């Protein structure tokens, strides 16, 4: 047991301070976790290896995108900070999938990378209860005694400069830094991303406490100087200004996305690109077997793409600005770990980039992480009491996935320290819930990327209604203040009132109505019809009907959008609500934590082992464990009935 006393045995080691919660790592997960704890009134310490790279965007200079945009909205709805900083730093904004139905509308914004880091740092520095410090955490410290249920218990952390910080809970958000190695062809460096120092020792201290450690890899593409790029050979992609900001608070306060925006560009790889890669594949550390970590399927390197989709002759590359005060451009879709010399050839094979000057090389990075199957849905370790983890350390990839876990881990660490009931967001309440449930129930064997298809109830989990789903929870735990909550309830009331009004407002057939309807290919009804019914017709919008809806009040865009969506898709939403009800039934069938799965006859061996490992809290969670079949679930349910039955019999006998 590495206790505080034991740490103090080493010469020059001293106790430097005492906090409620210590957050290790100030990336997107760490910033949200620290922000949540401090806002909830806990004395919080946030450690970072490099203060100048706080909330770094070491890969793509954008926030949001499909499913990820929904996550940012959810973080904001809970009272997080990512959406607000992103709104301040946006240089191009878009709503992806606009033509494909409201459930998959996904906001995304290009970020001014260095501004994002500076603004986040400054916002956190000004936060009461929060201390930010540059330090290297080399170990967690635990109590000499085990808890009643046999777990080690967190008492503090130790820095590389011999300082002990006592605390009641630790949230580790180590990103890709733990025992990191970067790969650039044959050149291997013991380094974190962007040449930053890596974390050494922390991973071992977790391993010593029996926390299972895995190893993943990921990568990032080159950055080129925009002055060396010929944009005439590229397709221009402009932003959209008629969309809401990420933050509901900003949206309700009338803050708009920037009206001046910077364009992105796209090109296709050429036959030459393919040839260069094919000729040099043997120099990729991934294929020569030097990299042990598992890479992401959904964000593969360019050599991976050519290898895996060998029938495809070309792939699309996006060229994105890194900020207003830099010439660096990011080549999305072109990540590689091939050597520097080859990277030059690859980039120069692309249209418009034949003379491109590479400012930063692409590289792959390998890092230690915690097997998320060892976590509960609060993101607390099932092995070490008071140890929370969030972000890439849990096997995810992406800033938004990290931020979402960060806020949940932060909230739960704070609730635990305060002795309050945990906050668990389930799969029907948010992408946050889907993300965490997937990680802690199914585990992952590659960096996990959020996708809308992972959500069973995505008609309901929309970017426009994250506030109605999560803001009451944020208010309950104290992350949303009264003023914002009042604005939120006003908005919800306005939506409900307007829905009610247009359900009751009947309009008679008229020439104006006929004209309006025919303009979108719809026909005039024979008798009076409610506005709500008309909106259910394909192509008919709320806005279209303005000329015939005399009593209409001026309403904000977000209210109009919600009214229209709720009504237009009413039937489908109701179907989904029915599914959610069924889902909740299984979620409420509690599985006692002391069940001995080995003893349940009829469970297949694999199911017994998986159930024993995950220790699901309810039948719903058990049913999602891979390797547990529906027949196993049937056995479990029969088993639950029999213990319930035998308990009642025992009572009667008594």
């Amino acid at each position, binding site marked *: 047991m590495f206790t505080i006393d034991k740490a103090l045995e080493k010469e020059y080691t001293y106790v430097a301070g005492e906090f409620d919660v210590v957050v290790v790592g100030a990336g997107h997960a760490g910033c949200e976790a620290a922000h949540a704890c401090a806002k909830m009134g806990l004395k919080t310490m946030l450690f970072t290896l490099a203060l100048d790279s706080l909330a770094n965007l070491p890969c793509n200079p954008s926030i949001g995108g*499909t*499913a990820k945009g929904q996550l940012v909205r959810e973080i904001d709805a809970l009272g997080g900070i990512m959406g607000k900083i992103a709104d301040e730093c946006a240089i191009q904004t878009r709503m*992806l*999938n606009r033509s*494909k*139905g*409201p*459930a*998959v509308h*996904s906001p995304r914004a290009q970020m001014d990378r260095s501004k994002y880091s500076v603004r986040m740092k400054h916002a956190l520095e000004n936060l009461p209860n929060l201390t930010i410090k540059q330090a290297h955490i080399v170990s967690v410290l635990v109590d000499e005694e085990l808890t009643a249920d046999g777990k080690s218990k967190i008492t503090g952390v130790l820095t590389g400069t011999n300082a002990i910080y006592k605390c009641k809970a630790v949230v580790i958000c180590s990103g890709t830094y733990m025992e990191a190695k970067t790969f650039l062809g044959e050149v291997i460096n013991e380094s974190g991303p962007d040449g930053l120092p890596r974390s050494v020792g922390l991973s071992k201290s977790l391993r010593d406490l029996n926390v299972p450690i895995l190893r993943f890899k990921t990568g990032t593409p080159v950055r080129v100087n925009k002055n060396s790029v010929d944009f005439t050979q590229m397709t221009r*992609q402009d932003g959209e200004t008629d969309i809401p900001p990420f933050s509901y608070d900003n949206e309700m306060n009338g803050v708009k996305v920037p009206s001046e925006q910077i364009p992105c560009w*796209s090109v296709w790889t050429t036959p030459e690109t393919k040839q260069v890669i094919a000729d040099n594949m043997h120099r990729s550390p991934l294929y020569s077997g030097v990299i042990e970590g598992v890479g992401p399927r959904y964000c593969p390197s360019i050599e991976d793409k050519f290898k895996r989709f060998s029938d495809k002759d070309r792939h*699309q590359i*996006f060229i994105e600005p890194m900020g207003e005060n830099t010439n660096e451009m990011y080549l999305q879709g072109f990540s590689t770990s091939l050597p520097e010399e080859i990277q030059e050839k690859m980039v120069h094979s692309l249209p418009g980039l034949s003379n491109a000057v590479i400012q930063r090389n692409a590289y792959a990075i390998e890092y230690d992480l915690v097997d998320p199957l060892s976590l509960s849905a609060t993101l607390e370790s099932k092995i070490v009491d008071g140890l929370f983890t969030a972000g890439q350390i849990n096997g995810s990839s992406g800033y938004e996935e990290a931020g979402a876990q960060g806020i949940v881990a932060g909230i739960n660490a704070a609730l635990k320290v305060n002795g309050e009931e945990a906050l668990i967001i389930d799969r029907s309440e948010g992408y946050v819930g889907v993300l965490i449930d997937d990680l802690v129930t199914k585990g992952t064997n590659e960096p996990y990327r959020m*996708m*809308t*298809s992972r959500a*069973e109830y*995505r*008609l309901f989990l929309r970017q426009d209604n994250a506030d109605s789903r999560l803001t009451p929870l944020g208010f309950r735990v104290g992350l949303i203040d009264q003023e914002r909550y009042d604005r939120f309830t006003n908005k919800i009331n306005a939506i409900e009132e307007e829905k009610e009004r247009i359900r009751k407002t009947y309009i008679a057939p008229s020439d104006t109505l006929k004209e309006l309807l025919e303009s979108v290919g719809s026909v005039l009804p024979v008798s009076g019809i409610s506005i709500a019914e008309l909106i259910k017709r*394909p*192509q008919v919008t709320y806005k279209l009907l303005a000329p015939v809806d005399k009593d209409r009040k001026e309403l904000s865009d977000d209210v109009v959008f919600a009214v229209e969506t709720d009504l*237009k*898709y009413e039937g*489908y939403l109701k*179907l*989904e609500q029915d*599914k959610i009800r*069924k889902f909740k*039934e*299984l979620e409420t*069938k509690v599985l006692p934590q002391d069940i001995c799965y080995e003893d349940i006859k*009829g469970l*297949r061996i694999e199911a017994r082992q998986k159930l024993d490992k995950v220790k699901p809290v309810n039948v719903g969670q058990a049913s999602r464990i891979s390797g547990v079949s*529906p*027949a196993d*679930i*049937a*056995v479990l*349910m*029969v088993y639950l009935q*029999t*213990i319930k*039955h*035998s308990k009642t*019999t025992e009572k009667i006998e008594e």
Partner: protein
Amino acid sequence: MNDIMDKPFCACSTPGGASGIAVIRLSGANSSLVADKVIKIIRSSGDYKSVSEMPGYTCAFAHVIDSATNQDIDDVVVTRFVPPYSYTGEELVEISCHGGSCVKQEILRVLIEAGARVAEPGEFTKRAFLNGKLDLSQAEAVMNVIAADSGRALKASNSQLNGNLRKELDESEKRLYEALSLIEMIVEFPEHDDTPENTAHVLEILEEVRSRLNVLANSYQKGRVLSERMSIALSGLPNSGKSSLLNALSGYDRAIVTEVAGTTRDTLEVQISVDGIPVTIVDTAGIRETSDRIEAMGVERAIKATSESDIVFYLVAPESSDSEIISQIETLLNEGVSPEIVTIVFSKRDIGANSGEDKIMERCNELGISNSIKISSMETISINELKEYIVSTYENLGGNTSSEIIIMNKRHAQIIMAAIEYMNMSISAINDELGVDIASSVIRSALEQLGEITGKRVSSELVDSIFSRFCIGK
């Protein structure tokens, strides 16, 4: 903790009532030890051996003994199965005994006294399911096999038991996942120019799956007949030869045939198999005005049975008055009998023809009844013609489906209908350009429905409801 449930359980697995022999099953851990207490295997040397000493999958001649009185109950043949290769996947002992009800009861009694418990309804199959021996659709098919008492029903059940239905549904599921993944491509990678923008291919897949499911759903019209029997009502004036026809079809004298009109006072049912199709023939009371209160009730029941049947044979005897016949047929149709299922049978042709045949058929054609046949109950030829008519009616149920798989289970039929409804919704969501997100949500609902049959998705109510429908001992 739950020792009651841990006890081996037993039941008679052959149908109730007296029979030549019967089979009693005992399943669960330590079944053979329980059996040891009551079963003595006689060796050629004259001494005894116990069931637990028997190697698995062997049989032995034995005595069942009431250990309290030391009296022999029956001479039996014992077969021992060892896990995991038994019907239930557990240790299992089968006792083939003599079929008298008293013998069976006695053997069950001594087994229970020896530490077994009575099986719950469907428990043997439930255990087989829980031990991974059967999937849900196979388990349900077991029930149909047990209930099947005709060749075709058995064939349909067996095909399901072997997982043909499952294979077919797996194929539909595969196609639906293909459609979903196309949609997900469109949604997840919106900016990529090589992402398919149009949904034509998705639509194609959805329509294909819908027609596959429609074939299955239609097959239930046949399947219903196979599991619940096809019903044929014999209708007509008193003494038109209904009972004679019933006897000719069933091959033995079931109904009393007399020369006195009104002999059949109530509906009389006979279950027969026509070329493998299970058929219930309902011989209805003659439909006529009557002052006899009991007979009047019979007439009422006759009308009800007629309107609920799959085929109505309306018999016309040579001597009947054509106007009376016509008015009675009109009455039947007014009572809700659909004209397409009615065939006019001119009976007793061995005696002579009805003089009003042409007039009757003319009116019938106006009413929508086009089938007629002339028979003599004594002649096998015309009876065969009727049987062929029954077979062809069966073949045409649910359209001339080429489906090898016949849905026999009402729950399956309902689920497939619900899935088809979701397919319709998803197709119109795409056609109305409501958004692919809506389409994908509804496709997922369809998949969830199908999962209820294949057992890929299980809810607690489902498991219980399926197994409670089994009779004890299966």
